[in-house]
């Protein structure tokens, strides 16, 4: 399972990435968290609000820092 965190690298994006890593670890499945900061790549997902979380290529949430619990539900 691949989790992409889209964001320019501001505080919110880093917090979301951290939460995603924690959720992935707690879940125990083979999860990989990848941060995407390149604007072209971010836009290619059709997202205008950061931070966004993409799981296996599907945009799951935009413009919000999800909590660890919320991310776990998405995995």
């Amino acid at each position, binding site marked *: 399972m691949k989790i992409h965190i889209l*964001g*320019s690298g*501001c505080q*919110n*994006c880093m917090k979301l990435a951290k939460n995603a890593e924690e959720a992935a670890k707690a879940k125990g499945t083979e999860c990989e968290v990848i941060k995407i900061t390149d*604007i*072209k790549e*971010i*836009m*290619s*997902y*059709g*997202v*205008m*609000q*950061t*931070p966004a979380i993409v799981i296996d290529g599907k*945009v799951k949430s*935009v*413009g*919000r820092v999800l909590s660890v619990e919320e991310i776990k539900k998405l995995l």
Partner: protein
Amino acid sequence: MLKFLADSLVYTLMGIQPGTRLGDTLHFFLYDTAKVFLLLITIIFVVAIIRSFFPPERARKLLGHRREYVGNFLAALLGIVTPFCSCSAVPMFIGFIESGLPLGVTFSFLISSPAVNEVALVMLWGLFGWKIALLYTATGIAVAFFGGIIIGKLKLENQVEDYVYQIKMGEAEIAVPTWKERIEYARGYTKDILKKVWIFVIVGIGFGALIHGYVPMDYVLKYAGRDNPFAVIVAVLLGIPLYSNAAGTIPIIQALVGKGLPMGTALAFMMSIVAISAPEIIILRNVIKPKLLAIFTGIVATAIIIVGYLFNIIL
């Protein structure tokens, strides 16, 4: 009700005489703090619920192929209700340009979004009353409308970084949230904002209370009163670097207005604090060239200065 609570707490419980400097200061502080926090919680929550209906993807669609004027006006309105943190300025700008929106319309959106700030709105409402809050909102929309039109007329499309035009935006299916999710979002949003501003509010009201109780009136009139023709310009220039302190600045301004600071000067100061911020300018540099950045800042600053003088004359 709040006034009664503050009255009984300061004058009855603490036994401080009304009309004394200490009594006035304490009363001002307690009453305003309670009122502002109540308003902050209620209004930010309501604003967040409204915002959950207008994600930028929707704003983009609503603005669609609209041209100047109508497009600028709609963009200025949408700028207020669309949730937007400064980190999203770049993707939002690209998304709007990519969908074929005119540059001027995009700028109307980009100006109104920070210019009409909900925290500033609450502070104004709580401390100055709803008329001034409404005036502030209308002014923000006007500045965004005309700012966008001028930028559109100047034909500055070549001042957008070239890569912006090359980006192809993907299609994302943005799920429509349920009511439970909207409320959850609004709760989280309100909490985040409160966490960010509470200290500024308290310190600001504290300073305001001190000014209210202790600073003599002629002092304010001498430096920032109607007789100083440069007061508005200085206020606007001072406001630019003060961005994050909008919540703390307004109570100070309120106390100064009570001491004779003209309302136009006060409003211009607040608008410049929230509308033009150094972090936003730096972020926008990613998508537009320095010349357009300078024109954008110049237009917004000039518009606010004009508004300041205008209000000083009418109010």
